[in-house]
């Protein structure tokens, strides 16, 4: 049977060990704004992987786009509500290497650097399709159709 003194010393030792453990544990890492975050799922809505084209591996991309001949091709000038849209597509080594606007409704203006103030890291995430119902949807509409038509006609010209 242990003497009371021994019991006392043992208890103190346990308590000391516990206190030491609590105070030497590392706290949670400093919060850093994550660069890529899995989107939070809400209780009502569910999210699923959004349809996003996956970049193909180089070899399959090469095989896929081998049908494009190298060179620069102007798409048709297509009118939209905002004005004319016309794109030029450059093919290098059988792949699309550049798309430039020959005509675009809003002049992009002289290229000026946006003020280089220090900015917080902005939260980014892979987009995810939301399956919950909505009342209304915001999206670019009209201009995109004109871009698509001009782009498609440039690719047609580039095909073998």
């Amino acid at each position, binding site marked *: 049977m242990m003497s009371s003194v021994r019991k006392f010393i043992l208890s103190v030792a346990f308590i000391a060990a516990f206190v030491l453990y609590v105070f030497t544990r590392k706290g949670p890492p400093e919060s850093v704004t994550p660069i890529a975050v899995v989107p939070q799922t809400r209780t009502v809505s569910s999210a699923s992987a959004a349809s*996003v084209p996956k970049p193909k591996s180089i070899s399959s991309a090469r095989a896929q786009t081998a049908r494009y001949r190298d060179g620069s091709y102007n798409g048709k000038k297509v009118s939209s509500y905002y004005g004319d849209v016309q794109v030029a597509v450059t093919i290098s080594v059988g792949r699309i290497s550049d798309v430039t606007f020959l005509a675009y409704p809003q002049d992009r203006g002289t290229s000026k650097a946006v003020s280089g103030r220090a900015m917080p890291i902005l939260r980014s995430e892979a987009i995810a*399709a939301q399956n919950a119902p909505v009342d*209304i949807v915001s*999206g670019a*509409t009209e201009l995109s159709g004109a871009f698509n038509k001009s782009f498609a006609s440039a690719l047609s010209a580039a095909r073998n």
Partner: protein
Amino acid sequence: MKQSADIMGMPIRLEIVDSGVGEEPFAEVFAYFRDIEARFSPFREDSEVTLLNRGDSTRETCSPLLREILARCEQTKEETNGYFDIRRADGKIDPSGFVKGWAIKQAADLLLLKGWKHFTVEAGGDIQTHGLNAEGSPWRTGIRNPFNTKEVVKILLLSGEGIATSGTYERGQHIYDPHKPGEAITDIMSMSVVGSDVCEADRFATAAFAMGREGIRFIEGLPGCEGYMIDREGIGTETSGFAVYTLSHVRTA
């Protein structure tokens, strides 16, 4: 009650959920948009804008309303370091990029004046919201997936704010830098801006999209605006205050 009409080359959609709503406000709003089209469309032979571009009128002799619109466009050009510019390459002016959002806001103000409280006004993907939807919740507003226009990738709760999305929806062709094989040139697919009203949202969304990836930082720096940008890799980037619109807040009409 919901109605839509094709005006200014785009669908104009109006939904009013106040009780007792009839045909009248819909007729008034569509008539308003038709009037705006007649007055300011650069594609109408006899519009005020065409007259100005032809030299048949000047900034001094044109209508006060057109003068005001031009002044707002000039102001927007300054605020966006020239990324918003209504002057085309051929020297003619085309204020359509400003008029769209502005007209939606004017139409919404018209409805408020008539006592309507719970509605959305939309023109070509830009939306002004007021009050609550039919279920009594802020308007559930989706942001379209630029890679699949049948999907939405964000749902926002708006009541009084405006949202505008500028973008392009090519079918996901990847653009490669021939000097860096395998590395896609990243650029952006869409830029959505939420503002205190749709006029604010619209004028900055157009400019921010033209800035490319830097556009989201431009919106971050604007007090009163939040933004969501989607790039070619399918990555969405939001301004630091954007999340307030994706959380459920108890909102009063």
